[in-house]
């Protein structure tokens, strides 16, 4: 292993939160409304993850994402449990890869319930595949400047004299 003792790793307790204990089809069925309900947390987490490129730096944001999703599913359970389970069941069993197309009817029922009872409207079908514009208070990380080598050859000074070539230059047609 290349993980040395100098590397700061968070402890087990810091990383332990209640996880979402749901299977893929259920998540796929909930995805559009979940994405809408947790849009800010998701974008914040993905921005952090993308900017810093280090899983250790974005643990708090990740916990916020999981917490938000947990709350979302609790709300679903409270308000639209039947409609949602029918939709998830349809997604699960209608196709081998959890297609949305065969389940438009159950989807419409769940959409209506989500809109009326939970106040979450379904976003356009390609919303999460678009570029997301996210307004955040997160400070921008310092951009890594160009590498500086102490033993690099110094440039010619600005004031250096640059006379025309003494014997002309080679001129060929192509290069």
């Amino acid at each position, binding site marked *: 292993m290349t993980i040395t*003792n100098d590397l700061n790793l968070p402890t087990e307790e810091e990383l332990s939160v209640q996880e*979402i204990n749901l299977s893929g089809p259920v998540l796929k069925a909930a995805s559009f409304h979940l994405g809408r309900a947790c849009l800010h947390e998701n974008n914040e987490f*993905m921005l952090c993850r993308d900017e810093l490129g280090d899983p*250790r730096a974005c643990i708090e944001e990740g916990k916020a994402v999981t917490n938000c999703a947990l709350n979302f599913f609790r709300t679903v359970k409270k308000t639209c449990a039947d409609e949602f389970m029918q939709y998830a069941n349809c997604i699960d069993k209608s196709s081998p890869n959890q297609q949305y197309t065969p389940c438009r009817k159950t989807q419409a029922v769940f959409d209506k319930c989500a809109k009326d009872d939970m106040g979450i409207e379904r976003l356009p*079908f390609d919303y*999460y*595949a678009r570029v997301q514009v996210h307004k955040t208070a997160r400070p921008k990380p310092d951009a890594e400047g160009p590498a500086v080598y102490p033993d690099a050859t110094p440039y010619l000074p600005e004031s250096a004299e640059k006379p025309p070539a003494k014997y002309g230059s080679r001129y060929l047609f192509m290069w």
Partner: protein
Amino acid sequence: MATSASAKKQDMPPEGGYKPISYKRIPAKTYFSGWALIGGYLGMTAAAGFLYYLNCKRLHRNEIEMRSGRFAIFPLLLAERDREYLKQLRRNRDEEAELMKNVEGWEVGTYYGEPLYKTVDKDKLIDPMMQGYYVHTPWKEFNRRAFIRQWS
């Protein structure tokens, strides 16, 4: 002699002569003219192309929707994966320390104190290679994950 023998009857044309030899070309009945055929071909191709376009658009739209759905739950999955990954890294490190505690001069994550990466910051997390990540597990676990393409 031949004169007395019954005269052989010569084959003669039938009464009224032979029928005229049928050499006239009888072309098949034409339903469409050439221009109509070409026009029909072009028309059908155009119609089929339009249907193909509609189908393509529908499939493309479905693909985008599936991708969009995946992207919507991706942060959730990534957050969970990150936490489990970091936990496992710590477990691996502890396991190595436990395993190599009797070896003199061994430092965890290095080869007798010689690190793998020398010029990078010590606190920079560089993902270990897969074999290193799975080194303390039974080989079956590694196979199950590494060759998931072949299993599925």
